Structure formats: structure tokens, C-alpha cells
């Protein structure tokens, strides 16, 4: 059965798997990538890739609920969760859907299993974490410190920003407590910043010198400034002529990865898979989640395509292969292989059981799937931390209609441009982290789409009120063009009881485990919600926002805290199930993302993150993945 054809087996074709595959094959290593999704979706070129995209788009157009996974096939043999399944835990039928939710709160974030992974539907926000995010315990006595610092990760952030193709403006990033070396001297992003929306500029102008009370108590004043900054994003814009890198390469002598320098002014945006000249700029489709029609937004297949083009003989991709068990050698504790089921089609359970072997194994599935696979294999879990510390950004959404000083409608023209182009950064770090979680506030460009399913719902409501004709048209115009939405994305702290487990009673179509999820919010996050709502009320009042925020007790994640009701929503930032640490007793992987228990098993993806910070995790995860790829190369060549 065994073969030694491959240096490395990678499970998963999302951004982590893609970055490992590309970095390793660029260095001449032989890689086998197992992808659970459909073979037809693994289309990297020309007409095939175009047809796949047309199919996704058509499905998206026809979907009545345009959820993040709506364009993509949800397979029986390799199921994905879908936020549409989220409901109050007591109302959910454990026989349906993918997650088995044990509560007390429902876990409201999903990912997609298939070619390109969740980068197919990610928004594309690429913020770095802040230096203090890596030392919460030391600074604020909360959560845990990371085993590495921001400074360790900085060069890998640059690699990730190259690979994803980040558009942004360094001088806009005035972030709390970052110090002068947050960016390397002279650093610029590959492309200029994505233009900020009209809505952003209106809000920004009205609030740029504003301070708000963050005490949570009207009688007591702790003032905190509101600072805006443009958001770096993984979508194509105008190349920055000062950008001077053209790739990431392996220095076999020094045993490290480095950025390849070139003459500035040579950066070429990476366009669509089917046509490199499509998607060279963001075209404003305003549908980044769930699908960028022109692929101006990065997705992991772009990286796989580059790897495949450069080293076709070194990268073997096997589709429709669902990994279900790692085989551990009882004596050496080394991984001897990955068992996977290769299915014929999604219509049938017909599959063959196969076994892949290599010198090193890399799990590059989502945080939930990686944990599930480790638990199914009884691997890497001597610390009992596998599956634990599941985290997400818990989002408090507040929304309303913008009015001018005379309470007349003030149009901001939402539903245009990328989902968010500006964020309020000043609550990302501060002494308040001793009392409650930090948060980031992206200004949302898409009206009340998220909480209220606008603009569709607005029509149903207006027609239900008996409106029709000119009056209906005028009414909807006035309502929809004035919609504003803020989200306060609060950093969840690691809780051992927030966890993914497996259970013999819950298996999928192919007989593989379904994730069983236990999930709750700590008071540290709940207090952040209370203060965030207190801040939002002040912002709305100062801006004449006609507040329409409504949390209803029949919503999935409605809870009460200190006498007030809130609904929290998942951000899709699934993190923390196999955390990195400096001690094998309380962590699953070491700072190189090698499992403490198995020398030839590496884990990649957001599961490695000990804490979440206030940035969307993909960029940090990608930076960590470059670090892991470097360690893998080092180990292969030692």
C-alpha cells in the first residue's frame, strides 16, 4: 500500500492548503493535495473555469436566500454547514443540517468545503493583528499570550499580502498602540487602496473628531476617540508603483523563506482564472460575499493555478477525496498515512477507500474540520485541547436610516461597492480590554442586507402595507438609499467548553463524523456588547440616525445581559480549535505549527490561533501558513 511518491500530503484546497502547496512545489517538493469537493469545480483555466463560474453565478441569482454558501454545491458526501440552518438550539433537529448544535447558543458561522475553500465566499478584508493582540494575558490579564510576537509574524504578513494581492494604504493605518515598526520601513501594499465608499466619506466627515463615552454609564464619563481608517483588502486595484516584490522563495542555504525583490512598478494584479485580463480591478459588483463575478477578489484557486502552472509534475490534486482518519504508528507516534474515501459522484455512496502516504502530513481544512479529523483519529490530543477554544467574532449589529439636521432623509446610497471599505479602528486595543472584549467596527456598504435581508424584505413590507405605484417607488427609494449599518465585531475569548466534539450517533452520508458543537458567550464578550450598544446609541444620536435596530427573542442567538436583550451573529471567523502554544500541556501545535505529539504532522488554518484579535483572521492565518511551510521545508531538508 505505501508509496513514497510524495514529500507531503495536504488535506484541503483552501488558502492554507494552496499556500503550502505552492511554497513547497516552488521549492521542488512533490505534493499530493486531497480535496473533498467536486472534481468539476477544480477548474483552473479557460473555458472550464468560466463554465464553473457561470454555474455558481446562476445558482446565486436563483437562490431565494443569498447566504455565503448559496452559489456553491453543498455535497452529501462532503457536507458544508450553511448559516441558513442556524436557529435557536432548542428548535434545531439534530438529524438535519451539518453541525449538531448542543448550545446553549447556536454557532452561527459557516465555511465551504470544496475547491478554493471558503476564500470563494470570504469578504476579502486583510487586516493585520495588532502587537497587543499577541499578549493579552501580559497586557490585560485576559485570555492567553501567543508563543510568538507580532514582530515574529511581520515578514510572513508581507508574504501573505503578496500572495493574496492586497490593496491598501499604509499611511492610513493609524492603529492603537502599534509603534513605529508595525510596517517595515518604506513598505507599501501591492496595490493602491480600494476607493472608500461615498457612504464612508459622509460618515467620516461627520465624525472624525468625535469622542464617545465607553463607561457604559451615563453618569460617568470615560471618553474614547473614534478613528477611521481605510481597510486593506484582498481585491484588485491599481498597482502601486512603489511595490518592489515579485514572489516568495525558499533559500535552501539559509533555510528560510524570503521575498523576491524586483524593479518597482512591475506588480501585475492576478485576474480571473478563465481570463487574466478579467478582474484586474474590482468592478463594484457588490457581491464579494458570496461571489465575485469577475474574480477581482482573491480566491485560493489562483494560488493553486500558479503552483500548477509552474510545477505541473510536482503537484497532484485528487478531487472527491474525503480524508477521514490519520493512521498513527503506535510506537514512533509518527503519522503513517491518511485514509480517505474517494466517491464516484455526489449522487451515490459509492466510494473506494484509499490511503495516501508521504514524509509529512499537513491538515489544511477549516478549524472545525481539522479538529474533527484529529478527534476521529485520536491524534495530536495529549493536551486535550483539540476541538476546544472554538472562537468567532460575535457581532452586534445596529442599523437605522440616516437623517440630516432637519430630520430629512440623507441619502448614503448603499448596496454599492465592496462590503466594507472603511473601519473604526480605535476600539481594537486599549485599557478597556481588562474589562471587556475589544472590537472593530467595519462601516457596512450594503444597507441592512445582513440583519434584515434588505432590499428584498423592504418590498414585501411596503407592499404588505398596501403601498403600490408611484408611492411605493418613492417610499422604497427614500428608505433604501438611507440605510446604514454598523457591526461591532467583538473578540471572543478562548473558553475550553466552547468546543467541537464527535459522537457515534451523528454521522454523514459517507459515514464520517459530523461536528458536534458546544458554544456560548462569556461575560467578557457580553460586557463588550453592552458597551458597544452604548457607544452605538451615542453615534446614532449624534448623526441623526433614525434607529431601527431590533433584536427579537425568537432569533437564533438572542440573549439577555444586565437587563437588556441582544442578538449576536457569527462573522464566519472560525478560529482556535487546535491552538498554538509554548507548552505541550495546554496547546496542540508548537510555534512552527507542528503537532507536539507527531513530528511529521503539521496543522494549518485558523485553528492554530490562540486568540482572535479584532482582525478578520484570513490574513494572519495565511502569514502563519507561510511560517509553517518554511518549517516543513526545513524539516524535509534536514
Amino acid at each position, binding site marked *: 500500500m505505501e508509496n513514497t511518491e510524495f514529500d507531503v500530503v495536504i488535506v484541503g484546497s483552501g488558502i492554507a492548503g494552496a499556500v503550502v502547496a505552492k511554497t513547497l512545489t516552488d521549492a521542488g517538493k512533490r505534493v499530493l493535495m486531497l480535496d473533498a469537493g467536486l472534481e468539476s469545480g477544480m477548474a483552473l483555466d479557460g473555458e472550464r473555469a468560466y463554465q464553473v463560474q457561470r454555474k455558481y453565478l446562476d445558482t446565486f441569482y436563483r437562490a431565494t436566500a443569498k447566504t455565503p454558501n448559496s452559489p456553491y454545491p453543498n455535497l452529501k458526501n462532503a457536507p458544508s454547514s450553511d448559516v441558513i440552518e442556524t436557529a435557536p438550539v432548542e428548535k434545531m433537529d439534530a438529524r438535519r443540517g451539518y453541525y449538531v448544535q448542543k448550545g446553549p447558543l447556536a454557532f452561527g458561522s459557516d465555511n465551504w468545503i470544496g475547491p478554493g475553500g471558503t476564500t470563494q465566499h470570504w469578504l476579502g478584508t486583510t487586516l493585520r493583528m495588532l502587537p497587543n493582540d499577541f499578549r493579552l494575558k501580559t497586557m490585560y490579564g485576559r485570555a492567553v499570550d501567543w508563543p510568538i510576537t507580532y514582530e515574529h509574524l511581520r515578514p510572513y504578513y508581507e508574504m501573505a499580502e503578496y500572495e493574496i494581492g492586497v490593496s491598501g494604504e499604509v499611511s492610513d493605518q493609524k492603529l492603537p498602540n502599534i509603534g513605529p515598526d508595525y510596517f517595515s520601513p518604506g513598505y507599501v501594499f501591492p496595490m493602491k487602496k480600494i476607493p472608500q465608499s461615498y457612504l464612508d466619506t459622509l460618515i467620516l466627515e461627520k465624525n472624525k473628531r468625535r469622542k464617545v463615552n465607553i463607561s457604559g454609564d451615563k453618569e460617568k464619563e470615560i471618553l474614547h476617540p473614534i478613528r477611521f481608517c481605510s481597510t486593506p483588502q484582498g481585491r484588485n486595484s491599481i498597482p502601486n508603483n512603489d511595490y518592489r516584490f515579485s514572489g516568495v522563495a525558499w533559500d535552501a542555504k539559509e533555510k528560510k523563506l524570503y521575498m523576491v525583490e524586483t524593479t518597482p512598478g512591475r506588480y501585475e494584479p492576478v485576474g480571473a482564472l478563465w481570463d*487574466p*485580463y478579467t478582474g*484586474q480591478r474590482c468592478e463594484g459588483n457588490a457581491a464579494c460575499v458570496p461571489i465575485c463575478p469577475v474574480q477581482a477578489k482573491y480566491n485560493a484557486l489562483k494560488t493553486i493555478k500558479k503552483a500548477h*502552472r509552474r510545477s505541473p509534475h510536482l503537484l497532484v490534486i485528487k478531487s472527491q477525496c474525503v480524508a477521514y482518519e490519520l493512521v498513527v504508528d503506535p510506537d514512533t507516534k509518527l503519522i503513517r498515512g491518511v485514509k480517505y474515501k474517494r466517491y464516484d459522484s455526489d449522487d451515490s455512496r459509492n466510494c473506494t477507500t484509499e490511503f495516501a502516504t508521504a514524509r509529512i502530513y499537513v491538515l489544511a481544512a477549516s478549524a472545525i474540520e481539522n479538529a474533527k479529523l484529529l478527534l476521529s483519529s485520536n491524534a495530536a490530543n495529549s493536551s486535550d485541547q483539540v476541538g476546544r477554544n472554538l472562537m468567532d467574532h460575535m457581532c452586534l449589529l445596529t442599523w437605522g436610516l440616516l437623517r440630516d439636521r432637519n430630520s430629512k432623509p440623507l441619502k448614503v446610497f448603499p448596496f454599492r461597492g465592496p462590503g466594507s471599505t472603511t473601519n473604526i479602528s480605535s476600539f481594537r486595543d486599549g485599557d478597556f480590554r481588562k474589562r471587556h472584549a475589544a472590537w472593530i467596527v467595519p462601516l457596512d456598504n450594503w444597507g441592512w442586507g445582513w440583519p434584515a435581508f434588505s432590499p428584498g424584505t423592504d418590498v414585501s413590507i411596503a407592499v404588505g402595507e398596501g403601498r403600490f405605484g408611484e408611492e411605493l417607488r418613492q417610499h422604497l427609494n427614500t428608505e433604501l438609499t438611507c440605510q446604514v449599518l454598523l457591526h461591532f465585531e467583538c473578540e471572543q475569548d478562548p473558553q475550553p467548553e466552547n468546543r467541537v466534539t464527535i459522537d457515534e450517533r451523528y454521522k454523514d452520508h459517507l459515514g464520517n463524523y459530523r461536528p458536534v458543537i458546544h458554544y456560548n458567550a462569556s461575560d467578557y464578550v457580553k460586557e463588550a456588547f453592552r458597551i458597544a450598544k452604548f457607544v452605538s446609541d451615542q453615534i446614532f444620536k449624534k448623526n441623526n440616525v433614525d434607529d431601527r435596530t431590533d433584536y427579537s427573542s425568537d432569533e437564533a442567538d438572542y440573549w439577555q445581559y444586565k437587563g437588556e436583550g441582544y442578538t449576536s451573529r457569527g462573522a464566519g471567523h472560525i478560529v482556535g480549535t487546535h491552538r498554538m502554544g509554548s507548552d505541550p500541556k495546554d496547546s496542540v501545535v508548537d510555534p512552527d505549527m507542528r503537532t507536539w505529539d507527531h513530528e511529521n504532522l503539521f496543522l494549518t488554518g485558523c485553528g492554530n490561533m490562540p486568540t482572535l484579535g479584532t482582525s478578520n483572521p484570513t490574513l494572519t492565518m495565511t502569514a502563519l501558513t507561510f511560517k509553517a511551510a518554511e518549517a516543513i521545508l526545513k524539516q524535509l531538508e534536514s
Partner: protein
Amino acid sequence: MRHRKESNIRTHRFSRSHQSPAAISNQAPVIETIEELRAALQEAIALEHFTIPPYLCALYSIRKGANPEATRIIQTVVIEEMGHMIMAANILNAIGGKPRIFARESLPEYPREMPHSAIGFEVGLLKFSKNALNTFLRIERPAEERGPTEPGQFWSIGEFYAAVSEALNRLDSEAKSRKQKKGIFTGCRPQVTNEHYHGSRGKVIAVYSIEDANEAIKEIVDQGEGKGGSIKDGDDDEPGDESKIAHYYRFNEIFFERRYRTNEPPDEPPSGDPLPVDWNAVYNMMPNPNLRVIRKESKLKEPQRSQLLGAMEEFNRTYSSLLRNIQRGCNGKPEVLREGVPMMHSLREMAIDLMRAEVGIGNYTAGPSFEYVP
């Protein structure tokens, strides 16, 4: 024997016998002085502009979702033609001229005789059809040796540019020999670059010298007719890409419903994979829509009639605004071109809406008329 490229356009093709001064005339100006060169470049801009409305009509008349390959081909061509117009304007700007993009004469009433063509053929606003493709092929046709022409007329657009190019080089070296260091490239207003206009495979070349101007003209001619006797368009190939071929040959692929094979000789029709075309998946746009004809002939009742005319006028107003914007952009204010982007996209939607509305003439639908609105 046929040969594909102009080899040596001699100045004797230019006659001094000027006729009417209309901007799109059938008479190219004599290119002896810098003023005449500027006039010729203004002609080049008008010539590029002239092709855009017919291409857009064919493109937008294809029903959404149908004929994806033909759509992509025409789309690429149009974007490159706009790039050509901007590059011609860049050259004119660089030699101290003032490019005119928004002018009554640059919005002629279609159908209209192809300017400067020695072949003599009519170009109209037609829906996507074999007939329309035939016209496009004539527009983009590479030169064949056919003997002398009437003064100011050319067998191909490539020949026209060859005459411009010859004059540019001659006048520039004359100026340099008079110790004018920058030659004729004295314009100091900002140029349009890729940063301001971005589309498809073509690149917009900013022009500051004779070398840049030659590169820009080469880009224009290669993209249209093919690079030195081949179907390829001269742009750098990205490895593994579908081979990129010049406009003429791309239209030929649609016409013959077949792809070219790699390095196929240019004299033959394409013989590669089939390129399926559904000639019926097209809105039934009336030929050469214009307000005057529709006002006179449409049997539509009120209020539809006024609504339709209103929608056509709005298209024309937006098109005129776009041209005004491009004109400012090409006259030293390239940063304003960004404001034109949403106009371009909204014109597409307006044109399609028109093509789906009955016009009240036969069973045709309306269409965009590209008329001048001061």
C-alpha cells in the same frame, strides 16, 4: 500572392488637393507640417471613435447569457478600440495638439461611409448578425496590395497609421536636426496611462517621445490587423493562455464559427475547434436607430412613444457626458477618467433596455442612436 502588411507607404499617396474640411472626410490631410500632422491624428481619433458605436450595438444586442464567446470577443475588441482612441489622443496631446473627442462631427449619423477607406463601404448600427460581422471584417481588414488609391484613401487602417507614423518620424527628426531637443514632443500636459484607463489585454501607452509614439502606433495596428503577417496581435503571451489574435481574425472566428488553431496561416479561414454561435439569440434591434426616423415612423401610441424617445435621449445625453469626460481626461486631466467609468457601464444597461422595447416599426425593437447632445 497576397501580402499582409503595408511595406512602404510613400508620401506620393498624399495629394495637395484638399476638399471639404469636415473632420471625418474622405480626404486625409496632407501631412507636411506639424499642423497637418495634428489634423491627421485628430482624424485617427475620429476614425477609432467611428468604429465604437457599431461594435457596441452588436455587442449589446446579444441576449444576456447567449453567445458567451462571441460576446467576449467583441467586448475585448471594443475595449481595445477605446484604448486606441486614447492612445491616438495621447500622441496628439504629446505633440502639442488638443484632442477633440466630444464634437458634433465625431458623432456622425449612421449608416455612413467608412472614412478614408479606398474600398468604400458603409458602416451602420446593426444588431449582431453575419451582416454586421461582414462590416467589422472590412473595418479591421489587413492591407492587401491593390495598387494606388485616391488621395487620402487607404486600403486599411494600418496604412492610415503608417502614413501618420511616417510623418511623425520625419517631422520629429527634422525638428531635432533644428536642435529642438524634444523634437515635436513638446506637449507637457499629463498623459493618460494604464492607471487611468484600464481594460482588457491592451495597454495604454503614455507618449513623451517618438519611441513611445511608435510603440503606441504599433500596438494599435497589431491589435487590429495582426502582427507582421500573422494572426497574433503582438501582445506578450502569458504562458498557457489561449492564443491572442488580432481583431480581424477574432471577428473571422465568429463569422466562421470556428477557432483558429495555433499559428494558423492568416490567409485561410479558421479550422480549429467549433465556436458555436446562435445568430438568433439577439434582440431584434432596428437598423440604424435614430430619433428623427423614430419620431417620423414609429406607430407607438402615447405615452409609450414619449417614454421611448425620452429613454433614447437619456442614452444620448449620457453618451455625450461620457465623451465630454474622456475629452477632459485626454487633455491633461487624466484623473477625471474615473468619473466616466460608471457612465460607460450605465450606457450598456440603457442600450440593452432600449433593445428590449418595441419601437413601433415593423417588429423591431429600439436601440441606442449615439447622437450628439450639446
